[in-house]
């Protein structure tokens, strides 16, 4: 049955289901070469000439490029003396071991050009590793750079084209995917992801959910166990991946796929209903977190009332230059106008950490999560910040818009940002531009220090929104994409619950609304506690909305207050989690089984 030399069937691998649904398709291996992707797939014998030609052209382009670079360096240039290294790279590109070796690999292994380049470069660099001389050993870097240059050409990265098209029915298998990688994936050909790294709250998981693509993460070494072209089943609800499924298994999963589809359909009816507790005492505004303009329709279809988090950094990603004011204005205007009169909360650029936009030329940092990112980056590059603010303030004239600042850690940063916002307003007024001067300003509370001084910050803003993903990461000192420690990442850690309660109380005392836009808000297990703490403004991944609305409509405030009281009496995350999950399982057995069991495992 299976077409690889591995003759076992129905190999079951268990990971964490992070985005529901079932997919049956063909494995495509994606490896990261520096920041980019090297897609891998199997080709037919008749495609060999085409792949070889793609490779030859990619090398030719690389050689031409190196020659151009070299010719532009003047003899008096500081580099003038070292241009020989460009000659070395040209010779490496033309070297038989690399050039003929790659072509031979394509033909003998029947793989695409990118895969062949990655393999051949890998083999050559491995040989260099055996050299003892440190200087000569370092030359492995040169062949690596050369390979990378060819890879970029193959994948069309120097032009604006996105990642090379995947064959239809692809299931992406990878060690890790950055949000930038994920952002470039084409939805029409990709059915699912199965990833070694990451947990439920990694950005890949978040994006898989917003792309509505089934995904399983935390599979440890699946990228080594699966070969390109293998038939696989991915069940994003239970976190199960099956390699080489037999016809029986495929039949069962086709059935499950159908059940899942029908369930989703039935759930959708809740999206259209208001989110108010059964006793009618506590109405909740449910908004959507989005990253792309084209998600607005989907968000509304799933029942969102406005956008609680528009992640603007995706406008900055996957490109060389920075988006212009007009380009940004157009994106914001579309989202704001579409949702009017419901509010749209625009988060100013939150680039940095694992989301860095290449166009910003940020120097590599040893600890990007604690580095130059978000508001720090914006205050450090006022032009960049002002361009975005101009676009937002102009777009705000088309509906109900709020500005939200990410990563604020002290009052000084907030005051500096406010000053820039006022400057931009004066400039827009002086230029006679149409804009909305009374845009509400809020903070994304995600740094523990900001939570601690919430009372001091509250005086300066109109609203708070708690960004739980980063807040938990910073408060618990856990990198949520580190597979060795992310088991410690728990939304229901007593410390997290206490921080959230604190912010909620400050908001009440100071009279400013407190919302939540982290993943925590969209996970049904947390919702009773959030209601119990008084939250009336939740923003989440659009796909989570129907289930959260269903839950809110089924519970009473008394029930939520009682669950909250009991949870606050417990002193460890796990018992709290188990307690709330048991409650969820009992109250919503069908939903729990279909959409939640795997995700919570």
């Amino acid at each position, binding site marked *: 049955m299976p077409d690889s030399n591995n003759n076992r069937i129905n190999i079951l691998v268990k990971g964490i289901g992070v985005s529901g649904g079932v997919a049956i398709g063909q494995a495509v291996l994606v490896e990261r070469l520096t920041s980019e992707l090297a897609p891998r797939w199997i080709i037919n014998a008749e495609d060999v000439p085409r792949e070889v030609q793609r490779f030859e052209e990619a090398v030719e382009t690389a050689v031409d490029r190196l020659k151009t670079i070299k010719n532009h360096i003047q003899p008096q240039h500081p580099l003038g003396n*070292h241009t*020989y*290294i460009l*000659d*070395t790279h040209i*010779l*490496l590109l033309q*070297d*038989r*071991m*690399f050039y003929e070796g790659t072509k031979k690999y394509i033909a003998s292994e029947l793989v695409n050009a990118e895969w062949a380049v990655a393999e051949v470069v890998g083999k*050559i660099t491995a*040989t*260099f590793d055996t*050299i*003892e*001389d440190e*200087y*000569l050993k370092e*030359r492995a870097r*040169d*062949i690596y750079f050369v390979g990378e240059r060819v890879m970029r050409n193959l994948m069309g990265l120097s032009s604006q084209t996105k990642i090379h098209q995947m064959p239809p029915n692809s299931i992406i298998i990878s060690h890790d995917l950055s949000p930038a990688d994920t952002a470039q994936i084409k939805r029409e050909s990709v059915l699912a992801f199965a990833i070694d790294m990451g947990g439920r709250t990694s950005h890949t998981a978040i994006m898989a959910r917003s792309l509505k693509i089934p995904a399983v993460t935390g599979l440890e070494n699946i990228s080594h166990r699966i070969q390109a072209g293998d038939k696989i089943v991915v069940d994003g609800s239970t976190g199960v991946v099956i390699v080489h499924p037999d016809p029986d298994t495929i039949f069962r999963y086709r059935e499950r796929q159908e059940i899942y589809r029908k369930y989703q359909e039935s759930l959708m009816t809740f999206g259209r209903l208001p989110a108010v507790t059964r006793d009618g005492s506590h109405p909740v505004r449910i908004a959507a977190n989005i990253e792309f303009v084209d998600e607005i329709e989907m968000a509304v279809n799933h029942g969102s009332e406005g956008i609680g988090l528009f992640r603007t950094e995706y406008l900055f990603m996957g490109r060389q230059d920075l988006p212009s004011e007009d380009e940004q204005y157009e994106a914001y205007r579309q989202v704001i106008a579409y949702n009017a009169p419901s509010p749209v909360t625009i988060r100013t650029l939150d680039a940095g950490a694992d989301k860095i936009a290449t166009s910003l030329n940020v120097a590599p940092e040893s600890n990007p999560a604690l580095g130059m990112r978000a508001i720090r980056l914006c205050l450090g590059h006022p032009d960049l910040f002002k361009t975005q603010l101009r676009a937002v303030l102009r777009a705000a004239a088309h509906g109900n818009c709020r500005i939200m600042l990410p990563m604020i850690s002290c009052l000084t940063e907030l005051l500096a940002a406010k000053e820039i916002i006022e400057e931009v307003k004066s400039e827009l007024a002086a230029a006679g531009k149409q804009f909305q001067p009374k845009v509400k300003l809020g903070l994304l509370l995600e740094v523990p220090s900001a939570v601690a001084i919430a009372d001091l910050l509250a005086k300066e803003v109109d609203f708070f929104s708690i960004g739980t993903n980063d807040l938990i990461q910073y408060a618990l000192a856990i990198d949520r994409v580190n597979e060795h420690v992310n088991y410690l990442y728990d939304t229901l850690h007593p410390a997290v619950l206490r921080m959230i309660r604190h912010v909620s109380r400050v908001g009440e005392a100071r009279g400013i609304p407190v919302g939540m836009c982290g993943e925590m808000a969209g996970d049904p297990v947390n919702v009773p506690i959030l209601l119990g703490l008084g939250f009336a403004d939740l923003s989440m991944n659009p796909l989570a909305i129907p289930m959260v609305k269903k839950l809110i409509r089924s519970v009473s405030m008394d029930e939520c207050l009682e669950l909250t009281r009991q949870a606050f009496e417990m002193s460890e995350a796990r018992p709290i989690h188990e307690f709330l999950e048991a409650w969820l399982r009992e109250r919503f057995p069908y939903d729990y089984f279909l959409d939640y069991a795997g995700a919570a495992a």
Partner: protein
Amino acid sequence: MTCDGEVHEKTMTIGNQLGLHARVATMMVQAMRNFSCHVTVVKDGVEVDAKSVLGLLLLAATPGSQILVRAQGPDSVKAIEEIRRLVEHQEPNAN
């Protein structure tokens, strides 16, 4: 394709500080492309094409090590002399 003629060989010592490094290997390949003869470099029993920069680098010929240059073809003697000039030359600030 094969070059006719006598096989010439010469043993030489790597003179510059960094060994048969990228710059020398590059210069060697560029120079050898002007010769029609077949030239190889042997070190510790490993024989590589003198027109392959990867091959030359992978020889890991460190300063002071000995290599054997073997050439076959019409301009063999000149090719070997060119290589000797390149590897025995002591470059003070080679990179």
